[in-house]
Every structure is written in C-alpha cells, then in structure tokens.
C-alpha cells in the first residue's frame, strides 16, 4: 500500500458496503470502510469529512487531530446502509499542512465477526480533469471492478 502525503487541502475517497464474495457461505458479510487521517503538521488541525450517498450529503464530521497524530473513522453499513457506494470528501487545513487520508475496506463474516475475508486499501485522490490509466488483468480468475467517482458539484 502506498504511503503518500497529500499536499492539497482537499481529497476524496470512495466507500462501498456491498460485499463482493460469491460464496453463499459468505452471504451477508459485513463491509467496513475504515478511514485514517494523519496530521503531519506541527500543531493541531481540524479536518471535515463529508459522506455523500446518491448525491446527497448524509453525514458530516469535524475531526480535530493533534500534531503528528492519527484519527480513525469507520463508514459501515449502519451508517450508510448495506448496499451503498459513493463519495467521501475530506477537507483539510488550507494553510498547506500536509496530511494523509487513506482507507481500508474490510470484509468480515457476519457469522464470525472476528474473521476477516478481505482487505482492500483505497488511496485518496483530489481528482483530475485529465485521463487516468489503470492496469488491468483478468488472469487467475481475477474480477476487476472499476470505480469512478465524479467529484464535481
């Protein structure tokens, strides 16, 4: 997983609570999107996290993060529903303070919540109006899924 500092005061991520498993034994698996925000600055900073669902802002949280510290936030099915996938907007300090926003999408068995069946790292991006190229493979029974988010208002 990349460890990347984000210089911009804005970045975004996608969340998805739809479990991808095809095994019937995993039906109803729990998907949790766990966001980490790290303040690389030398003083406490405030970050605003916006969760959008179907084009509507459904959740906002303001997080005060001390210098050189991390805070977490979980976007799970109880917060957005079990079949939701959409955009998370993150607004950091506008003074140039560097911060990291990254998410891991975890899948857990509903019958055994301590058993994790997948973990997908998602790297934040402020978006671009240019072309983005992504490498594709279908070897070894791979199921590629392309997630595109439109960050424009």
């Amino acid at each position, binding site marked *: 997983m990349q460890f990347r500092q984000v210089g911009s005061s804005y970045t975004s991520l996608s969340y998805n609570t739809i479990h991808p498993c095809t095994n019937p034994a995993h039906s109803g698996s729990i998907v949790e999107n766990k966001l980490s925000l790290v303040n690389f600055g030398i003083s406490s900073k405030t970050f605003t996290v916006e969760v959008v669902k179907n084009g509507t802002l459904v959740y906002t949280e303001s997080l005060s993060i001390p210098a050189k510290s991390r805070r977490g936030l979980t976007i799970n099915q109880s917060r957005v529903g079990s079949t939701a996938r959409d955009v998370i907007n993150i607004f950091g300090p506008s003074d140039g303070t560097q911060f990291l926003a990254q998410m891991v999408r975890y899948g857990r068995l509903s019958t055994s919540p301590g058993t994790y*069946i997948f973990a997908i790292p998602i*790297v934040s991006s402020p978006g671009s109006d240019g072309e*983005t190229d992504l490498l594709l493979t279908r070897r070894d029974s*791979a199921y*590629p899924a*392309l997630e595109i988010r*439109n960050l424009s208002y």
Partner: protein
Amino acid sequence: MLTNAAGSVVYNQAFAMSAQGMTSLDVRTLLSGASIYDGMISVIPMADGLGNFPNLASDLITYYRGTSCGIASTSYQKSATS
C-alpha cells in the same frame, strides 16, 4: 476505454455520471466475449455542453473471489493522472 496488451481498443463507451456520484463497473461484463487478459483501462473525462470538464477519480479493484473468497488476495492499482 479498454485496450488489450497489443494496444488495440476492445471497448469504448461514454456514459453520464451525476455530480458527487460514484459508479462501479464490472469489467468482466464489459469485456464479455473478448479474449483479453492483460491490458489498460483509460478513464477520459468528457466536457459537458458548456465545455466544462468533470473532476474524476478512478480506482481499479481486482478481486480474486474464486470459490471461497476466503483468504482472497485483493490487489489495488492506480496510476498517476496525465
């Protein structure tokens, strides 16, 4: 737009997205019938009627669901934007 390892375009489709929205595409379905195993996906923003380009971010998540999805290894790939 999807291109195979030889650089030939095997899929090219435009579609609309709502503002502050996300869509997920099953690439296997898009490539139904095409014998492509390795290649590249290019996501190309298109201007609206006023000439404004959208701000897009794209992720490709590769599931190895198999028959168990159990200890499925999952890869994530992302490129820099041009």
